[in-house]
């Protein structure tokens, strides 16, 4: 049963620069408690945005609200509602697992006994019940990630801010971590903001994505794997007048990439001219007609649905604009 009172995160026209180097530019969005993926290439401002949500950087100009709390003025109170799992570090050596989690609980404003009791509970939840008394510097990478999640959860936050939570995990550990995140967001009613480079992680856990590039919020849309609008990907390999064919294909497709003889084109079926037959068939015919017109001989033509990776690439890759 979900007991958490729904809280929102609101970011209004947030701009931030490191030594005159802009990191966030006029970012503006509002989130209801849900699982949200934060995507963007390196240096796009993802971690800076998470730090702004935590009130760790100077929020001026702009505003960040967690629920009714203004993080520029009430950051400590706002942080009680947020659980932060950093990508790097996040573990203070010299503590046992349970000691560290309890310490984080106490720092979050929990009474000492509550913090210790709760530390045991969340360590059970993340699957570290047998290792909780070991010194945390002896933990494996997977155990460290779980420990960091436990630290983020100990004070029962409304929102979890996860920075690359599956970083360095083996496939089994990654699946286990994503299951925990899914459980928290789906069944326990916690809001989750997942910052990651792994698009599959976002597809597996999030209902919505925010895409950042060069500090700007480029796009925000719902995650629906395999059904991103009416777009289809055509992977073509062949010989002949590749340059002319690619140039012509760019007029038909939303996005075209060329890697040697391998050409990938994303075609939006909804924008194709009307005609006979199914839209997919018309798209294939259109591609083949273009190939014939430009003396290009396709040896292989494969069609597949657009994935989040295709969408993400086209959004964040400036050369394709």
């Amino acid at each position, binding site marked *: 049963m979900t007991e958490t009172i729904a809280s929102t995160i609101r970011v209004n026209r947030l701009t931030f620069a490191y030594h005159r180097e802009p990191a966030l530019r006029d970012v503006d969005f509002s989130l209801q408690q849900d699982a949200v993926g934060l995507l963007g290439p390196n240096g796009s401002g993802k*971690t800076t945005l998470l730090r702004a949500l935590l009130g760790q950087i100077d929020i001026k100009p702009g505003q960040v609200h967690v629920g009714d709390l203004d993080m520029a003025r009430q950051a400590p109170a706002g942080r009680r509602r947020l659980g*932060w799992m950093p*990508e*790097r570090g996040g573990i*203070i050596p010299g503590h046992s697992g349970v000691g560290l989690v309890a310490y*984080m609980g106490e720092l979050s404003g929990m009474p000492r006994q509550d913090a210790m009791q709760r530390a045991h509970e969340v360590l059970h939840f993340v699957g570290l019940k047998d290792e909780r008394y070991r010194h945390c510097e002896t933990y494996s990478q997977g155990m460290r990630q779980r420990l960091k999640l436990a630290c983020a959860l100990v004070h029962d936050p409304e929102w979890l801010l996860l920075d690359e939570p599956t970083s360095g995990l083996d496939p089994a550990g990654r699946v286990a971590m994503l299951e925990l995140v899914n459980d928290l967001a789906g069944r326990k009613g916690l809001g989750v903001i997942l910052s990651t480079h792994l698009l599959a992680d976002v597809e597996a856990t999030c209902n919505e994505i925010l895409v950042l590039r060069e500090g700007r919020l480029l796009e925000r849309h719902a995650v629906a794997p395999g059904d991103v609008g009416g777009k289809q990907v055509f992977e073509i390999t062949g010989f002949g007048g590749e340059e002319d064919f690619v140039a012509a294909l760019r007029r038909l497709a939303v996005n075209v990439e060329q890697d040697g003889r391998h050409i990938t084109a994303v075609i939006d079926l909804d924008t194709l001219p009307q005609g006979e037959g199914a839209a997919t068939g018309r798209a294939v015919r259109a591609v083949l007609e273009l190939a014939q017109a430009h003396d290009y001989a396709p040896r292989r033509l494969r069609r597949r649905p657009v994935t989040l990776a295709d969408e993400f690439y086209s959004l964040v890759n400036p050369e394709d604009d």
Partner: protein
Amino acid sequence: MPVHERGYTHWNPSGARVDPPWLVIARRGLLAPLKNRWMLMLLFGALVPAIVKAAIVFFKAKAGQFMDLAVGGEWTSVTPAGFLSFVEHQRFFVFLITVIVGAGLIARDKRDNGLSLYFSRPISLLDYLGGKTLVVLAAYAAVTLLPSLLLCLFAYLVDPTAAGLDLLLLTPLRLAVISIFTGVGLSLVLLALSSLGTRTVLVVVWWAVLCLGGEAIGNLGDGIGLDSFQYVNFLGHWHNASSLLMSAPARLPVPPAASLLICLASIAGSLAILRRQIKPVEVVV
């Protein structure tokens, strides 16, 4: 239902008292070194001079003038100047214990990206610094103020007529004031050094240069007749400034007021460094 079958549950607060974050940080910082056997031995070792002084105070009370002839000097007296001299002679223990406890307090947090973890919690810079300062201050007080206060009490019990109620009221109060002033000042300087990097060993080196090196240069100056060399005697300045309150002769050939200004400047400089260095920024290693 067993906890491992319940999955994630929301926290149900018990309503018990919540400790302020600075106290939580200070408690953790103090308990960690106390688990070290060598640290405990060092703390007990720092009490040996107090035991020696207590014995001298005892025999002086019993033997009177004869004992004064045998072990005379400021260090053995129960006057405020005598206690200042006692605190001054504890400086080697002060150097060792403060550096063991305090050198890594911020450097280790920076190395392990602990700062971003601390500042993701509802704490302020003041909480963080207050907690860390309290750790070093407590270590300093354990080897200076605590034995001094015990000595005051002991001296009064042995010979209540020697210094009267001063030993129970005024002297302990003065000792507390100078210990807190010196302890906080030294803590802030040490923490400022600790905040400058991520390697504890470098903090130890800098602290040794400041405390031991400064005194060595000052003594060298004395040897060749150049009093101005004492201006670099870092620890000496704190004792020299304390002489103002303890009605004791100056400890250095430097005006105590000048030493006080140097101490205050050290505190201000340290605070400026700490304000600049303590930021919840992840260090990419």
